[in-house]
C-alpha cells in the first residue's frame, strides 16, 4: 500500500464512477505563501455518491485546498472542473452558484438569532417566517436532524449548532459538500449521527462529499476513498476498504509510527481504550493519599447575560496525578480555565491551592500561588505576541531578572537561552518577536515559562490543538513528566483520545458541572460518551 508519488484515481469501483465525469476535479493546484508551498500540484477528484476522505496532519494543506475549492482562496496554479467544465471560482458566492458548499470547522452562526433566521441569513429574498420555518422543518425531517426552527442559537449545544450549519448548507441543494473536521466538537454519539446523515446525503441523493480530517478512525469508518496529504502534496490515494490504520498513519506522518503509543494523536479511540484497560498502573494507596494540590469547591459563575457557565462545580487534583476533564466544547471548560488564570472572579465557591484558599478576584493570585496554565488560546492569555521570546519567558516572574526595579537584560537573555535549549524552542534568537514563531514553538514558550516557575498545579487547556503528531507527542511527554515530578495536572480537553491516554482519573463536565468521574482503568467509552452528552449514566 505504500504507493507511488502521485497515484491516479483508483481501482475498479472508482473508475466505474469516473466513467461518468467527476463532480469536481482539481488538477495541479498549487498555492504559495512566500517561500512556503501550502499546496503543491495537488490533484483531487470527488465523485457523486461517494464520500472522499482528505486525511493529513495540521498544516498538511488540506484546509487550503478546500478553501480554494469554495473560492475563499485563489490558487496560483492549476485548474478546477465542475462536472467536466472548467471553472474559475472567484468567491464563495460563485462556488454556491456552482453547487459547492462547506460546513466549516468553526461555525458562522449569529448567536442571538433563531435557527430559521440564521438559515435564511444572506438570502436575497423577502423574509417569510412561516415559509422559512417550514423549509427548516422539511430538511430537518428528511435527514433526521431534529432541529427546532424557533430555537435561539445561543441556547443550542455544539452538536445542534452543527446541524443548523448543515441545514444552512443543504438548503441550497448543493451537489458538492465539504465537511471540515466536523467531529471536533461532537460527542461520540453525535458523530455517529453525523455520519449517518452523510450516508443519506451521499447514497440516497447522489451528492459528492469531501470529509476533511486528521483522525484515522473517522476516515476508516465514514469514507469510501481517501486522499492523504503531507507537506502540501498528495502522498497517497486509495480505497478506504484497502486501507489499514497503520498504512494510513504511516502515509500521513511520513515515518513508521506506533499505533499504540501515538493512538491519541492519530485519533484512534478504540486503541486508546484498549490500552487504558491493559494499563497496569493501578493506583497505589500512596497515590490516594498524595496531597490535594488543587481543590475547586462549589464554583459558580454566570456570564453578563445571566447564563450559567459554572454550576456548583467541584473538582480536585492530587500531587502527581493527571486529571482529565472531558466534555464537549462550550460546557464551561473555558470558564474554569479563566477562573484558574485569575481572569474572572467566581460568583460563589472557592479555589484552594495546596490547602490554602486563593482569592479569585485578585489579578495574578493563582499564578503566584503556584497554578501554571497553558491556555486554550495562547494568543488570548498565554503570551504577548509583540514582545520578544525572552520577554515572554519571564512575564510573571520578574523577581529573578531584575534589580531594584530595573530589568536585568543579561539575566533575561540567559534564562531565555537556557529555556530555549531545555524545551527545544526554535527561534532565531531570544530577541525574536513572539509573533514570528510557529504555533508549535509559541506553545513551547508558554509551556517552558509555566513549568520553569515550578508550579504545584498545571492546568493544560486543549494543549495539543492545532499541533502536528510530533508536537503532540512532545506535549504529552512533558505533561506526564510534570506529573511524575509531583505536579498536579488538570488536563482540559475535548479530544477524548487525549484525555483517555494521559489521565489517571477522568471527570466529565456538562453544562458547567461535573457529571461523572472514573479512574483510568475503569473507563467505559460508551458511558463517557453518554455523560458528555448530558445523559446520566
Amino acid at each position, binding site marked *: 500500500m505504500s504507493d507511488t508519488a502521485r497515484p491516479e484515481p483508483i481501482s475498479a469501483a472508482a473508475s466505474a464512477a469516473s466513467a461518468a465525469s467527476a463532480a469536481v476535479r482539481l488538477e495541479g493546484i498549487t498555492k504559495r505563501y*512566500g517561500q512556503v508551498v501550502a499546496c503543491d500540484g495537488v490533484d483531487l477528484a470527488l465523485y457523486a455518491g461517494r464520500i472522499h476522505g482528505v486525511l493529513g496532519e495540521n498544516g498538511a494543506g488540506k484546509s487550503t485546498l478546500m478553501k480554494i475549492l469554495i473560492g475563499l482562496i485563489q490558487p496560483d496554479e492549476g485548474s478546477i472542473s465542475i462536472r467536466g467544465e472548467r471553472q474559475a471560482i472567484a468567491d464563495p458566492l460563485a462556488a454556491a452558484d456552482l453547487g459547492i458548499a462547506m460546513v466549516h470547522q468553526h461555525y458562522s452562526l449569529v448567536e442571538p438569532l433563531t435557527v430559521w433566521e440564521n438559515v435564511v441569513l444572506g438570502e436575497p429574498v423577502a423574509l417569510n417566517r412561516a415559509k422559512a420555518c417550514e423549509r427548516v422543518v422539511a430538511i430537518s425531517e428528511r435527514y433526521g436532524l431534529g432541529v427546532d426552527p424557533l430555537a435561539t442559537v445561543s441556547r443550542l449545544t455544539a452538536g445542534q449548532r452543527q446541524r443548523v450549519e448543515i441545514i444552512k448548507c443543504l438548503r441550497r441543494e448543493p451537489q458538492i459538500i465539504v465537511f471540515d473536521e466536523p467531529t471536533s466538537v461532537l460527542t461520540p454519539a453525535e458523530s455517529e449521527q453525523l455520519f449517518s446523515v452523510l450516508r443519506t446525503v451521499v447514497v440516497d441523493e447522489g451528492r459528492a462529499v469531501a470529509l476533511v480530517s486528521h483522525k484515522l478512525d473517522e476516515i476508516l469508518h465514514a469514507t469510501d476513498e481517501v486522499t492523504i496529504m503531507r507537506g502540501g502534496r498528495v502522498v497517497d490515494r486509495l480505497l478506504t476498504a484497502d486501507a489499514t490504520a497503520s498504512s494510513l498513519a504511516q502515509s500521513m506522518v511520513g515515518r513508521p509510527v506506533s499505533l499504540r503509543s501515538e493512538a491519541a494523536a492519530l485519533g484512534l479511540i478504540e486503541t486508546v481504550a484498549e490500552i487504558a484497560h491493559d494499563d497496569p498502573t493501578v493506583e497505589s494507596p500512596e497515590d490516594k493519599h498524595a496531597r490535594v494540590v488543587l481543590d475547586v469547591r462549589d464554583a459558580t459563575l454566570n456570564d453578563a447575560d445571566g447564563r450559567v457557565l459554572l454550576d456548583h462545580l467541584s473538582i480536585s487534583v492530587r500531587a502527581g496525578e493527571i486529571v482529565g476533564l472531558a466534555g464537549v466544547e462550550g460546557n464551561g471548560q473555558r470558564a474554569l480555565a479563566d477562573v484558574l488564570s485569575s481572569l474572572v472572579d467566581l460568583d460563589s465557591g472557592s479555589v484552594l491551592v495546596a490547602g490554602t484558599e486563593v482569592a479569585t478576584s485578585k489579578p495574578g493570585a493563582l499564578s503566584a500561588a503556584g497554578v501554571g496554565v497553558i491556555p486554550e488560546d495562547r494568543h488570548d492569555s498565554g503570551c504577548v505576541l509583540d514582545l520578544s521570546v525572552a520577554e515572554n519567558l519571564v512575564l510573571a516572574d520578574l523577581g529573578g531578572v531584575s534589580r531594584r526595579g530595573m530589568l536585568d537584560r543579561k539575566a533575561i537573555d540567559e534564562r531565555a537561552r537556557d529555556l530555549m535549549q531545555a524545551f527545544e524552542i526554535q527561534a532565531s534568537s531570544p530577541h525574536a518577536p513572539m509573533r514570528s514563531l510557529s504555533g508549535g514553538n509559541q506553545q513551547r514558550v508558554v509551556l517552558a515559562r509555566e513549568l520553569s516557575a515550578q508550579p504545584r498545579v498545571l492546568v493544560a487547556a486543549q494543549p495539543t490543538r492545532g499541533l502536528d503528531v510530533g508536537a503532540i507527542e512532545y506535549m504529552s511527554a512533558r505533561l506526564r513528566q510534570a506529573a511524575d515530578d509531583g505536579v498536579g495536572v488538570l488536563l482540559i480537553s475535548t479530544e477524548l483520545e487525549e484525555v483517555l491516554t494521559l489521565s489517571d482519573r477522568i471527570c466529565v463536565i456538562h453544562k458547567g458541572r461535573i457529571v461523572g468521574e472514573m479512574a483510568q482503568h475503569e473507563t467505559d467509552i460508551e458511558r463517557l460518551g453518554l455523560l458528555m452528552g448530558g445523559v446520566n449514566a
Partner: protein
Amino acid sequence: MSAATGINGEITSSELNQQPAATPTAERRVRSTPSRWRQVVPTVLIYVVSIAVALALCALLVSTTGGSAMKVFSALLDGSLRSPGSWGITINTAAPLLAVAAGTIVAGKAGLSNIGQEGQVLLGAAATAFIATRLVASGPVVIIISLTAGAAVGGLWALLASVMKFSRKVPEVISTLLLYFIAIQITDFALTKRWLLASLSTDSRVNNGQPIKRNARLPGFELFGNTISWGAFVAIILTAVIGIALARTTTGFRLRMLGLNPRTARRAGVSAAKIGGAALVVSGATAGLAGSLWLTGGVPGDRFTSGMSSNLGWQGLLVALLARQRAALAIPMAFVFAALRTGSQFLSATGVDRRIADVVQAMLVLALLVGAALEMVQKRRAERMAAA
C-alpha cells in the same frame, strides 16, 4: 493549517535554517540590516511625497487667493527658524508639546487613550498661575512649587477619568474628552473671581489673570540671540526618564504588557486598575506640567488668560501619535510641530489671511500624518494576515 501557518511557517522556516545556539546576535544583525533598509526607505519616501503634495496644494491655495506662494513659505521659515530669536521661541513652544506627548506615550503604552490633554494643560497652567501670583519665596522655591502644583492638578484631573474607568467602566476616551469642557468652564469662572485668578487692577480686563511674579518665570539663557527657557530641558529630561522607565524598569515592562495583552498581563499579576490608572494619572500630570511650562516659559505672555492652552494639548497628542509611541522620536516631532506653529503665527503677522495660514498649517500636519496612518494600516494588515 492553510493561510495562517503558511505565513507563520514561512518566517519560522527561515528562522529554523539558522542554528539558534550559535552567535544569535551576529546573525540577527546580518538578517535585519537589509530588511531595516527596506523599511526605512519607503517610510522616508512617503513623508517626502506627502509633504511635497501638501506644499503644492498650499501654493495653489495661496496663489488662488491672491498671495504669493514663495513669500508664504519663506515667511513660514522666517517665523519658525530664520528670523532673529525665532528658533528660541520654537524651542520654548516645543517644550510643552513634548511634555504632553511624553505622558500620552505612557497612557498609550498601557493601552489607554487619554485625549483630554487640552483640559489638563489648561488646569495645570491655572494652578501654576494661582501659586505664581501669590507665593512669596525665593525664585527656585516658587518655580518648583508652582510647577509641581500644575502637574498635580493635571494628574488629579486625569485621576477622575481613571476612577470612573476602573470602578464604573466608563471609557476613558469619553471621560477625558468631556472633562476638557468642564476644565474650560472652571478656568473661565476662576478668571471672574479675584480670590482665584482674576486680575486685581481693573474690571475692564475680564478673562485676564494677574501677571505672575517675576521670580516665578522660568529662567533662560541666551544662545545666538535666542532665549531658551529651562523648560526645554525639563521636557527633554522628562521624556528621557519616561522612555527609560518604559523600556528598562519592571513597572514599565508590566505597563507595556498590560497595553499589549491585558488578559495575559492580568494572569501575570498586573492590575489594570493600579498600573493603568497610574498611567492615566501620569499622562494627566505631564499635560498639567506642560501648562505650567507654557505659562512660566514666557511665550504666551506673563499671565493666565482664557483658553491659553491654545491647542497645545491636541497638538501634543498628535506629536505622540506621529512618534508612534516612541519617546526618542517625540523630541524631533515636537520640534517640527512647534516650528509649524510659530511659522504659521508669523505668517498671519505678515498680512496673509489668518484663515489661510491656519489651512496651510493644517495641511502640513495632515501630510505628516499620512505616513503614520499608512504605516498603521500596513501593520494591521500584516497582523491580520498572520492571524487569519
